[in-house]
């Protein structure tokens, strides 16, 4: 469904250039959930932004549903691929009502039955009709993230790109949003790429994952391997140890992987 071959992304020119993504490749089958894990600056979000067309400065090959992607994407692409961002406070227009936020993609794509689609989308993400004419500031973080999911799904895409969708939320709200995402995936046969720094969230949501460090994929593995605590690469092992909680003795053995990647 999604094919990424030798993707490179750099920012800036000459000596100031930052090589954010260094020749990474991966495939995601239809109906699969694929996790991209890494620490800040590892390039995981940049991969998502290149794939979604938000960042045109990339080289390599990207393909979605058998179609090679260019730098510019047409409407048909966006009807197929939608994205949910990390910050539910920054990703909704503060002066638009939820109704207007959800109506915009429908208008852009010239779809019919806007009214019915909006009320259905709200219903599907567990928000009642009473939320329809509210503004984002009248909603909690979890409710806003539900609106962001509704906006992404209203075009009935096949692929959802999720960039840290729950890292700004309290754990009890995170559980609700993760359950929602899993239910929607099963109902609509969606394909997910989930970017997260949280190994437990990826283990819960995905079947396979790639671990990124310093712009490169250090390891690709199944979640079963992660659960069995059998990562092959020392960087992944360290990430896994760190995710399991505070352990004074283990911390002294931590290595610095940023320079060696």
């Amino acid at each position, binding site marked *: 469904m999604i094919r990424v071959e030798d993707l490179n992304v750099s920012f800036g020119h000459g000596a100031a250039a930052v090589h954010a993504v260094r020749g990474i490749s991966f495939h995601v089958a239809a109906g699969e959930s694929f996790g991209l894990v890494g620490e800040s600056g590892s390039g995981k979000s940049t991969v998502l932004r290149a794939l979604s067309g938000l960042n045109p400065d990339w080289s390599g090959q990207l393909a979605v549903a058998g179609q090679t992607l260019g730098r510019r994407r047409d409407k048909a692409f966006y009807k197929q691929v939608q994205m949910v961002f990390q910050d539910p406070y920054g990703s909704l227009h503060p002066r638009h009502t939820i109704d207007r936020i959800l109506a915009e993609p429908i208008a852009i794509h010239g779809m019919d039955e806007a009214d019915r689609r909006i009320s259905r989308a709200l219903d599907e993400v567990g928000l009642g009709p009473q939320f329809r004419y509210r503004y984002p500031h009248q909603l909690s973080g979890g409710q806003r993230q539900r609106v962001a999911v509704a906006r992404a799904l209203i075009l009935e895409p096949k692929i959802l790109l999720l960039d840290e969708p729950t890292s700004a939320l309290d754990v*009890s709200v995170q559980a609700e949003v993760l359950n929602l995402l899993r239910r929607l995936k099963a109902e609509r046969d969606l394909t997910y790429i989930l970017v997260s720094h949280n190994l437990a969230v990826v283990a819960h949501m995905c079947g396979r994952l790639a671990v990124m460090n310093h712009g490169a994929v250090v390891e690709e593995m199944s979640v079963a391997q992660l659960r069995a605590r059998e990562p092959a690469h020392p960087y992944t092992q360290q990430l896994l140890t760190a995710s399991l909680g505070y352990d*004074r003795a283990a911390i002294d053995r931590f290595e610095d992987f940023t320079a060696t990647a």
Partner: protein
Amino acid sequence: MTQNPLLAVEDLRVDFATPKGLVEAVRGVSFSLGREKLGIVGESGSGKSVTGRAILRLVRPPGRVRAKKLEFDGTDLLGIDERAMRQIRGRHISMVMQDPKFSLNPVMTVGQQIAEAYRINGKGARRETKRRALEMLEAVRIRDPERVYRAYPHEVSGGMGQRIMIAMMLIPDPDLLIADEPTSALDVTVQLQVLAILDDLVTQRGMGLIFISHDLNLVASFCDRVLIMYGGQVLEVCDAKRLNEAKHPYTRGLLNCLPRIEAGSSADLPVLRRDPAWLDQGV
């Protein structure tokens, strides 16, 4: 430890008069702290940050702080004047705030700010101050301390800003450090390395630490004791090592709704159902 606590808090209440009525952010919190790591855990809005700020008398009007007792090392913190309070802030109790963007002075270099924090101890020649500041930056794992020393806050990343704040708060050698989500913007490995520095200060120098966080797993593995806050009250106090045996349904609910690496991913995560009665179950 219980006879002579570093900090004693009894029936702490903080409320804010707003146009829509009185908001009670903290409703009767009591605890005492020795030379240990005490975690305060809760979701957003539970009153955990306001509790931390109230101890340092950083709650501004219309906020109002009351307590039967708020005593630090024998000093009544609510009874002393602002001048005496300034002697305590930084030197004896310091606080690492959550967001470095709003807590660092944007028009002073990092080095100047750390040096200022060091000089409140009243000592130190200029060269000595700089040496200590660079040492402290290195201790919080900043790789190029000389560059960061000369940089302005907007020139460093959020994670680095957080580490700079920690360096600044530790340099006056406080007896008590209140850390409000001090590591939430850091990557897991760096987060643990910074916690290890705080841990060593507690065990080696006998500093007291109040660690405010929403991360149950981290608090359970890092702290000695944990207070669970909900709706401005402490619902439960337990040994950090035994957080998994916590009894209150709220604590249990929070623990259960965390995804786990080991668990099978077939089932949905349990969702927390809130009981209005919890609002009146403070201990």
